[in-house]
């Protein structure tokens, strides 16, 4: 008999998230329907100083041609299960006016969407990170994302998370700075690696439209559809498609949790879930636990938390049971599992 806190929520094998830098309004027409089709939530990475405005960054590919999502559109997408991350106030160098880019941008975004913003995505190239790094944690962010094409492990440094590019490029380079050689997008990118190692893929793209402006960093609806199709086929039910804030919350909750006082009798298991310190900014404190029973249960076990049936059974097969519930950070919780053998 064993009781283990699951690496990922619902006992799933790996995690997939997708982030949209700049959060252009066209996503509602071209990306949202594909997200709904595959049941994958998205994450919008917003320049706080330009919500609802036509992009006004002269050095940007999208200057004066793409409009950012408005606060109301962001709230509508949050209702769809999406989340919002901070991409600074002006998309500038964080080290020039750090307070505005990091602290004020967070406040502006939180005001706009009516809830906390917990993750930060470095604007431009990652070189603007180092000197400003110490302020990100002080400002209350729980995680920081780079864009260096790597798979995140199951216990990553939350202030050095990686994202992998989802792009269009097909054929000769259109931007020599970013395309050293002709290449094509592989819609399976890192999926097998994530499945094999139990990792967390975070895609990054920008606009999604039939004829993208920037082939090296935008996607088409077809490419997005192919990506999600590959995710579902490789995952085959073992993938947790989640927006990144929820994943960060799970990691922090899982790190604070421990299983203690396990007691097993015939057709009954109980244990105590102890929770250490969890940052106050964590919104979702769900935790998943997997229990291998000593005997095969002939019916679905019942799980109670502090005497109440508040856990969601994720999987049950023979003598293996996985369940998820909302953990309480202030108290230990007694979990009891009963079944007839």
């Amino acid at each position, binding site marked *: 008999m064993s009781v283990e806190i699951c690496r990922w929520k619902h006992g799933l094998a790996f995690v997939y998230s997708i982030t949209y830098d700049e959060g252009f309004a066209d996503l509602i027409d071209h990306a949202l329907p594909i997200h709904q089709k595959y049941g994958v939530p998205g994450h919008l990475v917003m320049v706080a100083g330009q919500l609802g405005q036509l992009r006004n960054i002269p050095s940007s590919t999208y200057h004066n041609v793409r409009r950012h999502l408005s606060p109301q559109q962001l709230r509508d997408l949050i209702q769809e299960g999406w989340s919002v991350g901070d991409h600074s106030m002006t998309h500038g160098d964080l080290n020039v006016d750090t307070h505005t880019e990091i602290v004020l941008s967070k406040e502006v975004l939180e005001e706009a969407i009516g809830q906390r913003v917990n993750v930060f995505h470095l604007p431009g190239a990652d070189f603007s990170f180092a000197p400003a790094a110490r302020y990100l944690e002080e400002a209350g962010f729980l995680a920081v994302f780079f*864009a260096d*094409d790597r798979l995140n492990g199951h216990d990553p440094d939350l202030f050095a998370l990686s994202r992998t590019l989802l792009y269009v490029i097909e054929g000769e380079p259109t931007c020599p*700075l*970013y395309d050293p050689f*002709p*290449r*094509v997008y592989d819609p399976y*990118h890192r999926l*097998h690696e994530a499945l094999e190692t139990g990792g967390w893929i975070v895609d990054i793209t920008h606009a999604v439209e039939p004829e993208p402006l920037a082939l090296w960093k935008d996607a088409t609806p077809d490419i997005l559809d192919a990506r999600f199709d590959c995710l579902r086929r490789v995952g085959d039910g073992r993938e947790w498609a989640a927006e990144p804030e929820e994943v960060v919350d799970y990691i922090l909750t899982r790190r604070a949790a421990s299983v203690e006082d396990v007691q097993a009798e015939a057709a009954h298991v109980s244990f105590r879930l102890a929770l250490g310190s969890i940052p106050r900014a964590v919104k979702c404190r769900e935790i998943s636990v997997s229990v291998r029973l000593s005997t095969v249960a002939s019916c679905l076990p019942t799980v109670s938390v502090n005497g109440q049936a508040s856990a969601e059974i994720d999987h049950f097969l023979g003598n293996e049971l996985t369940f998820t519930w909302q953990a309480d950070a202030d108290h230990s919780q007694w979990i009891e599992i009963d079944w007839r053998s």
Partner: protein
Amino acid sequence: MSYADDVVRIAPWKDDRQFAYSITYDEGLIETLGFAWRIHRRFGIPGHVNVFPGMLGELVGDTSAGFLQSLWNLQKYADSDHLQFLVSEGWTIGCQFHLDDRDRPAGSLLQARLSLEKAIAHPVRTLAFADFKSCDASQGAARDAGFRWLFTLYDGLNAADEATDVVRRSPLFHEGPTPIRLANDPYRLLALARDRRGWVVDVVRLVDRYPVDAARDCTPAELETRFRAVHKIGEDRVWAASPEIVADYRYLRLSTHIRDYVSAPHQIRYTLAVTPAEDRAPQGQLTFVAHLDTTWRSPQATVAGDTVPLRPSPEPGTWVFAHRVVDGLEAKIEDGSRRSA
């Protein structure tokens, strides 16, 4: 597709494998081959190495090219003995296009090819370009110099039905060029090749524990991981072979057609037409796939009077067989059990 194509078809790849995989090494640095060939032998994947014919056995001696080049100066080029050893291991050898050759006439490339053939006592049929622009610019001269296959740098799949002598190669690297810093992806393009019945050709330069140029080199561990991924995605459906062999097969297949198809009860006859797209008569063996009535208990193939063994495919009623291909060759498949009765 004709009825004949439905019943007998030529397999896209040898043994009707789902996709093909090859790997090439540019420049023929001896350290690369020292680490790589054992890994190749262990995984049963023959390689292909491209060398500068005028530099066999020499130290990398360009001291005028700055710090990075001076690191390469610790390396040495393979000599003819090393290359002949690799040929004995099933590898193939080609010429490496030198940037100094950009403005040279085809005669210079011809001289390079003949010089290498003399050194390794083996025909040399391929010319490899380290970048796609050189390949685009010098294709004509390379063909005039008698090179049969031209390897470019293009990170995408080769298609089974692509009638071209230019082979795309995907860089296998430790870490891609800045600023986007693509990271090593052991599964790059493999599942896509499986889905599309394509052909992946990797290119790497130095295989060493400490890559000199992260964007062109990889470690032995990364090479091993790549080969493991090839086998994991491919299982027994991947054809891992030298790119020359795969390109020869593809050319022969695209030049060969089934004509004069005749179907009678318990017997099928056809004739092959070999019509090369270019003025180069292809020769060799192709794999054929026959979809026969499942009541056929003992199918037998006879090609130009010789019996050819058929092996059953996992798909019911499907049989695979291989034979040499010559224009006008007559083949017959019949149900042996009926014939003997």
